[in-house]
C-alpha cells in the first residue's frame, strides 16, 4: 500500500480544502462518505495528526482527475481515463505567492547590495565612516525589525498599539510582502481572498494565516537585503581598498566607545578576536574634519572590516534569519490550526476515520423494469401479465365507473360478501356464488360456470364483489378473463369494489382498464349509493 505523504500542510492545502468543501456542499452524504472512506483507509499512518490527514486528503482528491471538477455535483462526469490531473487552485495560488516572494527576495538582495555600495561609497576625506555604515546596514534594518516584531505580538497586545493595531492598518499596508501580493493576477487574488481574507466566516482562522504569511514573506525580503549587504561588504573588502574611520561632533570618551564596541563584539570575540576593535584602533582611526592626517595609522584603517562584517552577520542577517524561521513555523502552525478548525473539517475527518456504513441499494433506483412494452392483455387463457404500472408522464387510462345494477348474479371473491358493507350487494343478488380465498381453483371454475349459466337464465349482469381496499391481484384478473371467455362478448360484468376510497378505486379502475374489455365496468359498492334502475345492464 502506498505510504501517505507526511510533508507538512501548506497554503495550497488550505486553499484546496476550502475549495473542496465548497464543492462538496450539497452532494449526497453517502457519496462523500464512500469517496472519503476509501481515501481514509490509505491514510491510517496519519492517525493522530489531523491537519496532515486533511492535507493528504485534499492532495489525494487533487490527484484523482475525476474528483477535480469544481463544478456542480450534477455536472457530466469527466473522462477520468484520459483527463490529466490539472493543477489545483491551491497549488497555482501557492506558486504565485512563491513567485511574488521570490521576486521580493531578489529585489531585497539588490537593495541590500545597493545600500551597502552606497554606505561604503560615502567617504568624507577619503574614509568610510563606520558609524554611517553601521547606521545604514545595522541600525536601520533593526528599526524595521522592531516594526515587524510589533506585528508578531499577540492579538490582545497588538490591538492596543496604534498603527499596528488594525490588521489592515498602515503598518501592515506598507509591508513589502503585502505590496508584492497586490501584484498577483486577479484570479489568484480571488482564490486567496477567501483563504486569507480579513472578513467573512473564516476571518478568525485566516487572520493569523495572513499575518504570518506576510511576516515570513517580509522577512524573506529582509533576509535577502541583509544577504545582499553582507555579500557586497565582503566583496568590497576583498576587491577594494577600504579605509575606515569614525568621527563625531560629540565630546565622547574613547574608552566608553571601546566598551560599547566590545559589548557588541561579545558574541564573536572568543572566536575571532580581531573582529573586536581594540582601544588603539579606536584612537588611531578617529578623525577630525580639520585635524592633520595621522599618517602613522594608515595601516590600521582597514582593520575595522571584521567588526563591520560580524555586525552585519550577527545583528542584521541573523535576527532576520531567526525571525524568518519563527514566522515560517508560526505560519505552518496557523495552517494546521486553520485546517483542523475550519467549518466542516471535523466532518471530513469523521468520514475519513469512521467505518463506512452503506445501506442503500447499489443498483440504480427507479429503474424497475416495467412490462408495459408488452402487448395489452387479450381475452385468451394466457395468464395475465402481472404489472401494468401507470404510464410515465401522463394519466393512465381509467375504466369507466358504473353504478350497481338493480339485479345481478353475484360472485363473492374470497370472503368479501362477509363484509358488513356487502349487505346491499347480497340484497340485489338473484343468485350468489363464491370463489377465491380458501376455495380451490376447481371450485372457482365450478362457481364460474354456474354463475354464467344463472346470468344467462335471468338475463342480468354478472357482479364480482371484491374487497376494494385490497389491490387487484393477478389471479382476480385471471378469473375475470376466464369469466369473459365463458360468457362471450356483450355480457355485462361489474366489479363491485367494497369499502374503498377514491385512491383504491382508482387502482382498480387503472388495473381493469388494461383488459380492454368494453363490457366490463367497476362500481363502488358503497352502501349509501343507491342502485340505478337498469344501471350497467
Amino acid at each position: 500500500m502506498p505510504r501517505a505523504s507526511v510533508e507538512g500542510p501548506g497554503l495550497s492545502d488550505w486553499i484546496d480544502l476550502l475549495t473542496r468543501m465548497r464543492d462538496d456542499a450539497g452532494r449526497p452524504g453517502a457519496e462523500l462518505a464512500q469517496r472519503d472512506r476509501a481515501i481514509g483507509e490509505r491514510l491510517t499512518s496519519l492517525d493522530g495528526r489531523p491537519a496532515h490527514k486533511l492535507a493528504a486528503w485534499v492532495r489525494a482528491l487533487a490527484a484523482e482527475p475525476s474528483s477535480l471538477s469544481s463544478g456542480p455535483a450534477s455536472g457530466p462526469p469527466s473522462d477520468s481515463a484520459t483527463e490529466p490531473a490539472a493543477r489545483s487552485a491551491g497549488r497555482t495560488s501557492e506558486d504565485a505567492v512563491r513567485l511574488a516572494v521570490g521576486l521580493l527576495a531578489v529585489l531585497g538582495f539588490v537593495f541590500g547590495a545597493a545600500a551597502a555600495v552606497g554606505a561604503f561609497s560615502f567617504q568624507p576625506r577619503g574614509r568610510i565612516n563606520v558609524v554611517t555604515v553601521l547606521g545604514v546596514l545595522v541600525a536601520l534594518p533593526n528599526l524595521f525589525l522592531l516594526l515587524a516584531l510589533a506585528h508578531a505580538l499577540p492579538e490582545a497586545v497588538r490591538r492596543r498599539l496604534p498603527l499596528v493595531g488594525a490588521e489592515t492598518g498602515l503598518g501592515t499596508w506598507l509591508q513589502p510582502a503585502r505590496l508584492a501580493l497586490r501584484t498577483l493576477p486577479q484570479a489568484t487574488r480571488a482564490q486567496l481572498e477567501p483563504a486569507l481574507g480579513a472578513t467573512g466566516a473564516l476571518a478568525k482562522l485566516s487572520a493569523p494565516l495572513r499575518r504570518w504569511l506576510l511576516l515570513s514573506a517580509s522577512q524573506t525580503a529582509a533576509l535577502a537585503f541583509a544577504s545582499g549587504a553582507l555579500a557586497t561588504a565582503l566583496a568590497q573588502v576583498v576587491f577594494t581598498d577600504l579605509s575606515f574611520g569614525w568621527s563625531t561632533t560629540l565630546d565622547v570618551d574613547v574608552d566608553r566607545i571601546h566598551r560599547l564596541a566590545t559589548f557588541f563584539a561579545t558574541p564573536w570575540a572568543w572566536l575571532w578576536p580581531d573582529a573586536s576593535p581594540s582601544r588603539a584602533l579606536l584612537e588611531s582611526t578617529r578623525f577630525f574634519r580639520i585635524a592633520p592626517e595621522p599618517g602613522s595609522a594608515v595601516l590600521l584603517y582597514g582593520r575595522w572590516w571584521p567588526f563591520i562584517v560580524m555586525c552585519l552577520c550577527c545583528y542584521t542577517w541573523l535576527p532576520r534569519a531567526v525571525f524568518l524561521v519563527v514566522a515560517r513555523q508560526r505560519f505552518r502552525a496557523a495552517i494546521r490550526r486553520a485546517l483542523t478548525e475550519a467549518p466542516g473539517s471535523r466532518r471530513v475527518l469523521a468520514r475519513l476515520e469512521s467505518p463506512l456504513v452503506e445501506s442503500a441499494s447499489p443498483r440504480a433506483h427507479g429503474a424497475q423494469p416495467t412490462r408495459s412494452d408488452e402487448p395489452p392483455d387479450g381475452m385468451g387463457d394466457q395468464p395475465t401479465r402481472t404489472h401494468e404500472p401507470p404510464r410515465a408522464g401522463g394519466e393512465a387510462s381509467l375504466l369507466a365507473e358504473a353504478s350497481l345494477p338493480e339485479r345481478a348474479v353475484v360472485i363473492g371473491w374470497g370472503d368479501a360478501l362477509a363484509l358488513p358493507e356487502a349487505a346491499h350487494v347480497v340484497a340485489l343478488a338473484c343468485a350468489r356464488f363464491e370463489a377465491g380465498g380458501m376455495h380451490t381453483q376447481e371450485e372457482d371454475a365450478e362457481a364460474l360456470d354456474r354463475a354464467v349459466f344463472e346470468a344467462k337464465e335471468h338475463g342480468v349482469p354478472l357482479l364480482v364483489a371484491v374487497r376494494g381496499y385490497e389491490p387487484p391481484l393477478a389471479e382476480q384478473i385471471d378469473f375475470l378473463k376466464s369469466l369473459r371467455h365463458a360468457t362471450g362478448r356483450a355480457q355485462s360484468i361489474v366489479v363491485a369494489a367494497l369499502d374503498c376510497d377514491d385512491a383504491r378505486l382508482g387502482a382498480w379502475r387503472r388495473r381493469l382498464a388494461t383488459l380492454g374489455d368494453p363490457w366490463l365496468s367497476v362500481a363502488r359498492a358503497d352502501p349509501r349509493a343507491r342502485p340505478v334502475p337498469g344501471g350497467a345492464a
Partner: protein
Amino acid sequence: MRDGTPEFAPKPPLPQSAHSSAREVPAFAVLGHPNKGKSSLVAALAQDERVRVAPDPGTTTRAERFPLRVDGEVLYELVDTPGFQRARGVLAWLKAEAARTGTTAADRPALVARFCREPGHAARFPDEVALLEPVIAGAGVLYVVDGAVPFSSDYEAEMEILRWTGRPSLAVINPIGLPRYVAEWENALGQFFRVVRVLDAVNASFETRLDLLRAFGELDARWREPLRRAVAALEADRARKLRDAAEEIAQLVAAAAALSVEERIPQDASPDGYRAGLEERYRGVLRTLEHDARRNVEVIYDFSELAHAAEETDAARAALQALLDEDLFSERTWLAFGMRTRDLVAAGSAAGAATGGVIDAAVGGTSLLAGAALGGLIGGALAFLGAGRLARVEVLRQPLGSRVVRYGPTKGPNLPAVLLGRARLHHAVVAGRAHARRDALDLTAESARLGGRFAPLDAGVLRRILRGLGPAADSPGDAVHAIEMLLREDAVRAAD
C-alpha cells in the same frame, strides 16, 4: 510529493458482496401481499429515500437487494420483492405435487425450490418465482401485512407457502392508516410465525428500526453476531450524523450572530435612505443561511430529495420580524488603509510631536520638549477633527475614504436563540423521519405536533453556546457539544 504527482495509487473497487461470498450473510426477504408497505419497510430500514414506493400495486417487479455494508463488509441484506399475485395457484401446485410424490413435511422446502425451477413457472408465476428465489437461497422471511385493514382468507395461501419454505420467519404488522385490526392480525399471524412485530414503517423511529434488526438476530443463532455488529455500526453512524448536524447548526448560529451587511454611500447622501434596502439584504442573507443549513442537515441524514411544504406561516415570519425590529442600523466613516480614527489620531500626534521636536531642537532644548508635546496634541486633535474630511480627499481620483452604512450584527441573543430553536425543530423532524415517507416536510405542522415536547432552551446553555461561537472564542468545540446534547435530547423527546 507536493509537485502534483499522485501520492496514492488508486484503490481498486471492492467487488460487490466480496465479503459475503466468504461466509453466509444473513438475508431477509421482505414478502407479502402487494401494496402492504414492503418497499416502505425496506426504505425505512435501508434509510434509502430512493426506493420506489407508490400507491399502485405492482410497483416492485423484481427482487432487489439492499445490503448493509460496513467498510465493504456485508453484515446483512434486505431483499425487496414483488407481492404475491397467484398464491393459490402456487399452493395448489405444491399440494398436488406433494400428494403425487408423497412429499413429507421435511421435503417441502425442496418442493418449493422445484416449483421455482419448473419450466414455464417463471412465465406463469413471475412474481412468486421472483419472491421465492431469495428465500430458497437462504434468506429469512419477513412477512409484511397492513394492520389498518382486516385479515381475510386471501392471505392464508401466502402464509402457507412461506411455511412450506421452512425458513426462519418474522411477521411485521405495518399499519398503513389507523391500526384498527392489529389484534386480529396478531391472532392470525401467530399461527404461522414465531415472532410478530408491529412497526409503522413510515413513522418508525430510529430506535424502533434497530429493535426490528435485533429481532432479526433472534431468528437464527448464526445471525445474532452480524446483526449485533450491524446495529452497533448504525448507532455509531447515527451518532456521527448527530455531531455533523450540531456542527452545521453551530455554523448557522455563528454566522447569523455575526451577520452584517454594509454599503458605502456618498458623503452628502442621507443614511436613512439606505435603511430599507440594507434591511432587506440582511433578511435575504439570513434566509439563505438558514435554508442552506437545513439542506445540509437533510443531506447529513441521507435526504437529498426531500420536498418542503409551503414555507412557514405568517405567524412564524412575524415572530422573526419582531426580532429584527431592534435597531441594527449604523453609520461610520471608512478610511483608506483601513485606518481607524484612533490610528489616524496616533499618526497625527506623532507627526505633530516630530514637528514640535524640531522647534525644541532649534531652541537648544530650552523649551523642555514643550514643542513636541504641544505639537503632538495639536496634531492629534486635527487628525480627530479631520477624519471625516480626509475621507473626501481624492488621490489619483480615488477617494481616501467614504461613509459606510451598515445593518447588523445583532446585539442581543434573541435572533440566534430563535434560529437555534428553529434548527432544533427541523433537525428533530429530519432525524426522526423515516425514508419511507414520501410527503413533503411540513415544519409548521411538525411544530404544532412536536413543539411542546422540547425542553426550553436554558439561558445559561444559550450563553455558553453564543460565547463559544463568538469572535473571541478560541474553539467552537464546546458550543458544538452543547448543541449536540440539545439535539440528542430533542430526538429522544420527539420519538416518545
